[in-house]
């Protein structure tokens, strides 16, 4: 089997047994990147020198026991996660040349575990979008059909993993940005519980919603990378100190007695019939394996989208205030306009249209006289959404829904309609609003494009989440399919 066809676990085992060196694994990945990048544009920076030198260092060092669980495994990192000495652009003109002086905690952890960062992946600018078309450096493409988007905002990571550029990638998820592209590209993506993974070094978009998570082609590989990055971090006060569970051990095929809720609001109009039917078939598969599934209701679901598009932009308008052309990043030429004029020009020219739109909406929602009507009300609705989750989780262990209402859409199809694009997040963003963990797993195809199944669980119960996902995956073979490129 070609090295690039292997999953992360298989590859790590092979390297540990001496069957292949880390350098060979990295070379195979770089070659695959070179082959597939011209048609996918999934990556913004490839770092062959650093990757090869890390791999050689690893090959010379220690024994397989001391080198860590990811020793020699190539990993792709979304370009809003800081990598010391490697450009981190957020797919924005604002940070086009920015080289972080430090690495995110997740990057340090995956490197300590022996993982090798080979490239930085494309995204919607500052993670704002659902198609990766908002990148200042051009859109990425879906390996199943290059006329289609890979989803977003972690579209580059999803496209790269699906195309076998690397077995593992990191994404970030504020309203579905890991799960929706995972679904559209036919891979597995996990958004952990809010507070489970450190966000130190993640460029902030909406701080009460952002989480970093793993993306891979199998549930087991997602668990492997999750194990490495999960756990407390004193550099992030939102990261809880509770120790991580054994997520790899959670990957057992057994759902006997598992209580599944299927909230009917997630199958409302706008969900493609083929998507709804694939998800219902998946629920039947789990029922046949001994789970107990039942329809339920979460009435607040229909308000999530509007509440999200007030809260996230409000937080973004505050987080993105730091880009003023002074300490780092782009600075516009505005001779004679003074300090404020320089900042106003810098921001007008440095940010793309979608980012500016969200900053404007957020600024308005927080401004005097409108705060109560918009921001406070959205936060109250967020409480109602949380209560809905608390209520259904008294009865059920997991919830099952579609990840995305539709399969991948064509490039440009929704670019001019801001509302149509945002509907892509309908099924994913409630999990961010409530802070619960959620995963997307491949569950079928329509028109040759993958369909994703979303499973949600109680806060910090990734163990049950992974068990349900693994059981479903092992009972089907959707995840084994690969796109022809």
């Amino acid at each position: 089997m070609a090295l690039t066809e292997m999953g992360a676990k298989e590859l790590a085992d092979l390297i540990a047994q001496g069957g292949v060196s880390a350098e060979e694994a990295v070379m195979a990945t770089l070659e695959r990147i070179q082959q597939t990048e011209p048609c996918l544009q999934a990556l913004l920076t490839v770092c062959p020198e650093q990757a090869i030198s890390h791999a050689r260092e690893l090959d010379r060092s220690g024994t397989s026991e001391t080198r860590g669980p990811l020793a020699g495994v190539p990993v792709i990192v979304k370009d809003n996660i800081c990598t010391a000495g490697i450009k981190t652009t957020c797919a924005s003109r604002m940070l086009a040349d920015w080289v972080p002086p430090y690495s995110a905690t997740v990057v340090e952890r995956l490197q300590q575990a022996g993982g090798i960062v080979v490239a930085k992946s494309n995204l919607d600018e500052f993670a704002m979008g659902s198609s990766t078309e908002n990148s200042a450096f051009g859109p990425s493409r879906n390996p199943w059909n290059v006329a289609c988007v890979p989803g977003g905002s972690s579209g580059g990571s999803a496209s790269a993993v699906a195309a076998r550029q690397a077995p593992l990638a990191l994404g970030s998820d504020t309203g579905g940005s890991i799960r929706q592209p995972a679904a559209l590209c036919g891979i597995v993506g996990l958004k952990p519980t809010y507070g489970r993974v450190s966000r130190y070094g993640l460029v902030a978009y909406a701080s009460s919603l952002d989480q970093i998570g793993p993306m891979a082609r199998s549930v087991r590989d997602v668990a492997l990378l999750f194990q490495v990055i999960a756990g407390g971090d004193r550099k992030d006060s939102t990261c809880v100190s509770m120790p991580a569970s054994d997520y790899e051990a959670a990957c057992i095929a057994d759902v006997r007695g598992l209580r599944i809720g299927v909230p009917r609001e997630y199958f409302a109009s706008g969900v493609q019939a083929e998507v709804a039917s694939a998800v219902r078939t998946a629920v039947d598969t789990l029922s046949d394996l001994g789970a107990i599934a039942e329809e339920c209701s979460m009435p607040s679901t229909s308000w999530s989208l509007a509440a999200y598009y007030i809260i996230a932009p409000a937080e973004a308008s505050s987080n993105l205030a730091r880009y003023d052309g002074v300490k780092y990043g782009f600075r516009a030429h505005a001779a004679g306009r003074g300090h404020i004029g320089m900042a106003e020009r810098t921001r007008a020219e440095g940010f793309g249209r979608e980012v500016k739109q969200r900053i404007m909406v957020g600024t308005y929602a927080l401004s005097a006289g409108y705060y109560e009507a918009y921001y406070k009300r959205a936060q109250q609705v967020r409480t109602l959404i949380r209560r809905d989750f608390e209520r259904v989780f008294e009865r059920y262990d997991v919830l099952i829904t579609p990840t995305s209402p539709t399969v991948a859409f064509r490039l440009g199809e929704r670019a001019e309609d801001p509302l149509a694009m945002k509907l892509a997040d309908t099924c994913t963003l409630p999990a961010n609003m409530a802070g619960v963990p959620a995963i997307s797993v491949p569950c079928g195809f329509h028109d040759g494009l993958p369909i994703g199944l979303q499973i949600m669980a109680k806060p910090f119960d990734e163990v049950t989440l992974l068990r349900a996902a693994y059981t479903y995956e092992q009972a089907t073979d959707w995840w084994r399919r690969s796109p022809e490129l």
Partner: protein
Amino acid sequence: MPLTDTDIRTVARLARLALPEEEMAAQYEHINALMRWFEVLQTVDVTGVEPTSHVIGMYNFLRQDVAAESLSQEAVLSNAPEAAEGFFAVPRILED
């Protein structure tokens, strides 16, 4: 409540965005479409409901007030659009 042309200019000024006229007009369209869509929230009964700002309790991490390692001046200035004599350089702030 739709935004007026004056509102949108005020918001752009608050957000420190010097938008050219045609972009101002496009943003005006987009933002008002979103605002119409937010109206759905006005129909929700939120009487007595506490707002959620964060889903988990947050605590500050404290440490002893002793000097610790930090980034070097060189590293801090390495990404500055303009630096001079160990400082960030900006356009003139005060009038002559």
